[in-house]
């Protein structure tokens, strides 16, 4: 077996040193009834080329984004990732290192995390960011729990514009919690949350651009929350939007959670992704997840370490801020490299290009009979109402080679009002001809 270094002779020699008659002697603590009393019926080991053939056959049964016009978004976005990013993250020293528990021989990972935290703090306009969480959805649930610890209040209000999966994750994390108020879907972008804040409210959760693409007024939400002593959690599923939209930190957000997949990370059918979390300086001791900090070594040289770990499970056990341990280190690296390659100039151009393509998409869709564009404002994603149920429509368009977006009914199956709504995204990878192909096909299907 190509991954196992020992020869049988070496195994025998080692058993001799141990003083064991055979390998089973080392498993003597296992109850007899449980030790290899079974036939697994699994295939035997296989050469690399046969494994590769099997996996290629599976991959070939999927329709990749690059295979044709593609407008699917709704929380995960298809962007270009520079070749440099993927090359660098596959370097052994990044790929096959562990969490940096021994800082003297982990300065690469630690300095990268320090740079990553700085990038996220700058992007969001917040004081501090952590070294990543699993993804935006679990990050939102963590932020809600953090807000409860900070305010010692319980009521949480989720905006109707929050991604339905994120809403579901928060609901699962706060199971059967009477203090969780979930507002009904607001596909028209209607302001819905300000009337629901009271003296018991720990936080309101507002997504912008929201699930339907509308841009929400963060400043108004922050002012309303703060007037009642509540916190504002801002959720961002498309982090590229921050290249043209005002940073939530500059508008009064208390905690910002974002899905960072768009920068540096492929679609991967949903994971691994990258949870970003940033907050105010005074809140860091209630923040979940790892933090990297600057210090000096015994010679006075600058260096970096994981810090404030008294918040974490391996020190505090049942009193920890979260049970999180492993996070999204390599995805954070990919994000950080891509962001370093972009820089402010490139990131701003990228965001503008996304918005420009989305504007073209909106204008083209508005001209298709049977299509109504619901958004007055958007970044790179918008919602349309179609004359037919969206779920069937996208299947027919898929047969024509076009992945036309996400029917809202897939995420809101019990809400009859959304049956004809379709969410479409455009990115820098969306071409003008993709847009015209979509519109021609839509017009034919809706005719």
């Amino acid at each position, binding site marked *: 077996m190509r991954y196992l270094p020992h020869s049988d002779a070496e195994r025998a020699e*080692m058993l001799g040193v*141990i003083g064991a008659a055979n390998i089973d002697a*080392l498993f003597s603590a*296992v109850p007899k009834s449980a030790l*290899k*009393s079974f036939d*697994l019926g*699994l*295939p035997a*080991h296989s050469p690399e080329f046969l*494994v*590769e053939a099997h996996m290629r056959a599976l*991959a070939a049964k*999927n329709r*990749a*984004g690059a295979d044709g016009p593609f407008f*699917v978004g709704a929380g*995960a976005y298809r962007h270009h990732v520079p070749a440099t990013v993927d090359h660098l*993250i596959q370097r052994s020293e*990044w*790929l*096959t290192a562990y969490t940096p528990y*021994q800082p*003297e*021989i*982990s*300065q*690469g*990972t630690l300095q*990268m995390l*320090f740079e990553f*935290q700085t*990038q996220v703090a700058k992007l969001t306009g917040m004081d501090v960011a952590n070294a990543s969480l699993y*993804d935006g959805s679990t990050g939102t649930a963590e932020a809600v729990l953090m807000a409860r610890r900070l305010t010692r209040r319980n009521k949480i209000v989720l905006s109707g514009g929050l991604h339905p*999966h994120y809403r579901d994750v928060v609901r699962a994390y706060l199971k059967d919690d009477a203090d969780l108020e979930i507002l009904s879907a607001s596909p028209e972008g209607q302001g819905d949350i300000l009337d629901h804040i009271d003296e018991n409210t720990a936080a309101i959760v507002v997504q912008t651009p929201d699930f339907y693409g509308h841009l929400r007024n963060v400043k108004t939400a922050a002012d309303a929350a703060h007037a009642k002593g509540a916190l504002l959690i801002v959720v961002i599923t498309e982090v590229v939007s*921050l290249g043209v939209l005002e940073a939530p930190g500059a508008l009064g957000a208390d905690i910002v959670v974002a899905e960072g997949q768009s920068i540096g990370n492929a*679609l991967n059918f*949903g*994971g691994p992704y990258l949870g970003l979390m940033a907050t105010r300086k005074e809140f860091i001791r209630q923040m979940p997840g790892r933090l990297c900090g600057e210090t*000096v070594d015994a010679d006075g*040289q600058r260096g970096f370490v994981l*810090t404030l770990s008294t918040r*974490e*499970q391996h020190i505090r056990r*049942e009193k920890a801020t979260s*049970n*999180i*341990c*492993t*996070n999204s280190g*390599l995805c954070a690296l990919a994000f950080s*490299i891509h962001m370093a*390659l972009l820089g402010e*100039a490139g*990131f701003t*151009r990228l965001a503008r290009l996304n918005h420009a393509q989305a504007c073209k998409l909106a204008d083209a869709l508005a001209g298709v009979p049977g299509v109504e564009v619901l*958004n007055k404002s*958007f970044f790179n994603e918008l919602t349309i109402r179609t004359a037919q149920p969206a779920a069937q429509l996208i299947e027919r368009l*898929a047969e024509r080679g076009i992945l036309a977006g*996400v029917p809202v009914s897939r995420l809101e199956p019990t809400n009859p009002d959304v049956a004809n709504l379709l969410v479409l995204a455009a990115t820098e990878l969306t071409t003008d001809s993709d847009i015209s192909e979509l519109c021609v096909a839509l017009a034919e299907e809706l005719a």
Partner: protein
Amino acid sequence: MSMNNQGRPTGVGTSGFASTSGSALLPNEPLLFEIGDTEHSGVDLPDVTISNDRLGGFERKSKLDLAGLTEPEAMRHYVRLSRLNHSIDSGMYPLGSCTMKHNPRLNEKMARLSGFSDIHPLQPVSTVQGALTLMNELSHWLMTLTNTAAVALTPKAGAHGELLGMMAIKAAQDAAGQSHRTIVLVPESAHGTNPATAAFLGYSVKPIPARADGTVDVQAVKDALSTDVAAIMLTNPNTCGLFEPQVIEIAEAVHQAGAFFYCDGANFNAIMGVVRPGDLGIDAMHINLHKTFSTPHGGGGPGAGPVVLSEALAPFAPVPFVRKGAGGLELVEHAKDSALGRITAFQGQMGMYVRALTYMLSHGGDGLAQAAQDAVLNANYIKARLAHAFSVPFGDYPTMHEALFDDTFLAGTGVTTLDFAKALIDEGFHPMTMYFPLVVHGAMLIEPTESESKQTLDRFCDVMEELAADAKAGNKERFTSAPLKAPRRRLDETRAARSPILKWERT
């Protein structure tokens, strides 16, 4: 404009930082913000003008101030930084409890096939039948290796899997009118994630003491069981590297008391293909794909923590899951289809599923069992070779996949476990896990995995023996001043925590 130690302009981020000890092979790399600026970019994109924007008046007015690098500069920055890391590929990484095994590159190549990497979690299910088939195949392997009824693939890491497993237990007990069960039993030797998870769900944690031999005290478990106990969270093999010999008896007692058995599967590498946890009576167990099935650790993730479930818990699995339908495989993804609901957006760590299945197919059932046996052989070999010079806390039993020592052998030397670990760095090895498990004084937990050759193990043991002898000979300075040959000497962690500097700021 000022220059950095590579003769590159420091741009807007100048902080006056200068190298004091860097060399070509051991670089002292400035921060990204000290070498980049807001004008440089390594990505060519058109600068479009938008005449009629739809930003609703929310345009950014605050400065982004993000440093950029051209491609050659970025390449050099990240390559130079990478050189400051130890990695499995560059040397043995015997961190106990972490299973730092070889990461085959075929896994990486397969995960990057566009049919896996370039598919969207919400594109029509008819266009991702290969992905759903892959999830089914991975599930089959995991259920077969554990002899369990179901598996929930979506947890994003081990701790997330623990959370899901305990949520499933809670959902099952709520459904059975057993919501009054509010206590979770957790052995003292458990990973910190176990009590943290139980507390996260509102359970009170009752610690179970270890016996003198390092295993769980069965009588203490029985005494602690009551109608208020929801579950026990037990790691097996445990964090002392020992298989719990009375695990079946524990499972039976737990079930008799109407509670569930959550098994922390962090150490599954010791028994995969050799022992099926389902045969031991577990109800839920997470499997760290990034440990046991070689998906890389990546400097701290991403991981993946699928949870296998017994028949009793299978109905409480979260969405989404894959199901056979009339027209092919279906994805059940509506939160209303599960009492538990959804614990993450989308389908979980697909990139890790691809890598793990690739690893499983490469090994086959026979190779996985051989890998587990080799991992156990290697740990016992280290224990046998070092027992004379180190102190073994629990006597002369065979260990599983990791060898545990305490610091008795260092008594009177003035050298601590930490010092010893740092001295190991100067000898070219990543240290073992230190001070964990907590039940052993000054613990040194060594997990070689199956990936290390006998030659490497011998070299490691030679170095360990020599260090132990040197410590006992009174050469304290070598240990307390270590490391001397690493990119940094010991770092001041107290200072970092006292006045935290968590991001770069322009000075």
